[in-house]
C-alpha cells in the first residue's frame, strides 16, 4: 500500500465545528484527499493515499465527516471550475465520446468510508423493512 505524506503547503485548517482532538487530524487529511475535476483535465489531483487511520465507527463521526467532505468538495469545485458552454460540449461530443466529461477525484480511503456508511444504512433499512413485514403478518 502506497503511503504518501500530505503536502504541507496545502494544509488548511479544519472548518468543522467538531472540537474532538482525535477528529481534527483526520479531518485535515480528508480535506487533502478529495478534489474534483471537471472538463477532463486541468485541475490537479492530490496524492491519493495516506496511512489508514484508526477511525471510530460511530455514526455521528461519519456524518460529520461526510458533511465536512461535502463542504470541502464544494469549495474546491468552485475554485477550480472551468466554465464551458454547453454548445461547445455538444459539438465536440461525438469526437470526444471516449473521454469522461466528469470525474470525481475521490481517494479509496474516502470511497471505502462512504461505502461502509451505505452498507450500514442498508442493513438498518433491511431490518426496519423486516420489522414492518412482520407487523403486517401480525395483523
Amino acid at each position, binding site marked *: *500500500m*502506497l503511503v504518501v505524506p500530505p503536502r504541507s503547503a496545502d494544509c488548511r485548517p479544519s472548518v468543522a465545528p467538531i472540537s474532538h482532538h482525535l477528529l481534527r487530524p483526520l479531518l485535515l487529511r480528508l480535506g487533502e484527499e478529495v478534489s*474534483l*475535476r*471537471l472538463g477532463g483535465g486541468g485541475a490537479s*489531483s492530490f496524492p*491519493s*493515499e495516506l496511512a*489508514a487511520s484508526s477511525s471510530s465507527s460511530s455514526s455521528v463521526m461519519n456524518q460529520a465527516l*461526510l458533511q465536512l*467532505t*461535502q463542504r470541502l*468538495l*464544494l469549495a474546491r*469545485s*468552485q475554485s477550480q*471550475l472551468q466554465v464551458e*458552454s*454547453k454548445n461547445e460540449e*455538444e459539438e465536440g*461530443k*461525438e469526437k470526444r*465520446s*471516449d473521454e*469522461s*466529461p*466528469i*470525474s*470525481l*477525484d*475521490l481517494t*479509496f480511503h474516502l*470511497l*471505502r468510508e*462512504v*461505502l461502509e*456508511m*451505505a*452498507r450500514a*444504512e*442498508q*442493513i*438498518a*433499512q*433491511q*431490518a426496519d*423493512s*423486516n*420489522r*414492518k*413485514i*412482520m407487523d*403486517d*403478518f401480525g395483523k
Partner: protein
Amino acid sequence: MPATPCAQLLLCLMSVSARLGLGRYVEDNEASDGLYSLLSLEQKRGSEDLLFRRPLRCLDMLATDGYFTFVASRPQLACAAFIIAEPSEVISLELSDVSIDCSAGDFIKMFDGWVLKGEKFPSSQDHQLPVHQRYTDYCSSTGPGAKSRSSQNVAMVFFRIQSPDSGFTLLVKKLHNPFPCNVMSQSPEGSFTMVIPHQRRNCSFSIIYPVELRLTELSLGQAKSNELSPQRQVWSGCSGSGDYVELLGGNGVDTSKMFPVADLCFSLSGLAQMKIGCDNSVVRLVSSGNYINRVSFQYRLLEHNELPRSRENSLDNFCTVE
C-alpha cells in the same frame, strides 16, 4: 420445568438482536428477497410504502432501493452519487420530478459503471458497450431519457444544479442478474463464484481493499462436445490461451491499467492463495466463448501488519504482492 433466568435473558437478547439486524451479515445471493417473498400478492401491491425514502446528498453512496430526492440549497456544481448493489444484481435508475435548467448548464448524467479519478470500472475492454453509450444524459435525451439500467452491480449519477430549490428524485431499484460479470464487492470479505457460460467476454471481480485471495476452484475449458481437449500445464504466459484467470493489483479502478500479479490457465481443485497489498485487488476471468468457465474464490481483508513489505527495487506506485 421452568426456564432459568439465564435462558430467558438469552432468548430475549437473541430476539432483540434479530429485530435490530445486528446478526453477522452473511453474503447471500438470495437474501435480497428475504421476508418479502412470503408476502401475499395483496400485501405486495401495498409494498410501495415499504420503499425507502431519504434526501440525496451532493456526494452520496446508495446501497438500498428507494427514492432519493436532491434539492439544491445553493448552487451545486459538481455532485456525484455512487450506487452499488449485490454482486448478482443490476441497478435500474429512474428520474422523476426533475426541475433543472439544461440551457443554463445544469445536467444529470447516469453512467453504467463507476468513474473514479478519470478511470472507469468496468474498463472499456470488459464492458460490452462503447463509452458514449454508457452515459444517459437527461438533457440530451428525448423521450425516455430519464431511465437507465446498468450492466453490473455498480452505477453512478453525476449532476450539476445551479439554481437553488431545483432538483430531482432518483428511483433506485435492483434487478436480479443470473450470470454476473464485472462485480464490485461491497465488502472486504466474502466469497464468490463467477461463471462465464459459452460467452466470449472478460469479467472482473473487483475488491477495493488489500486482501488475501484464495482460489478454491477453477474450471476452464469444459468442451462443448464430448471431445477431450488436453489441459495446458503452463504456469505463466497464459495470455496465449483463450481461457484463463488473472489476478490483478493496482491503485485505480480501471482493470486495464492494473498490474497482473498471477495468471492461471489450467483447472485446479485445490487451494491457491495470494496476498495483494493494493488498494484494488481483482480476479479477472478471460473467456474465449468455447467453454463454460468457472472460478470460485474467497477473500479477506489484510490488516495493516499483514501487508506484504515493499521490496527496495519495486516500481514506484506499484503496490506490494506476496
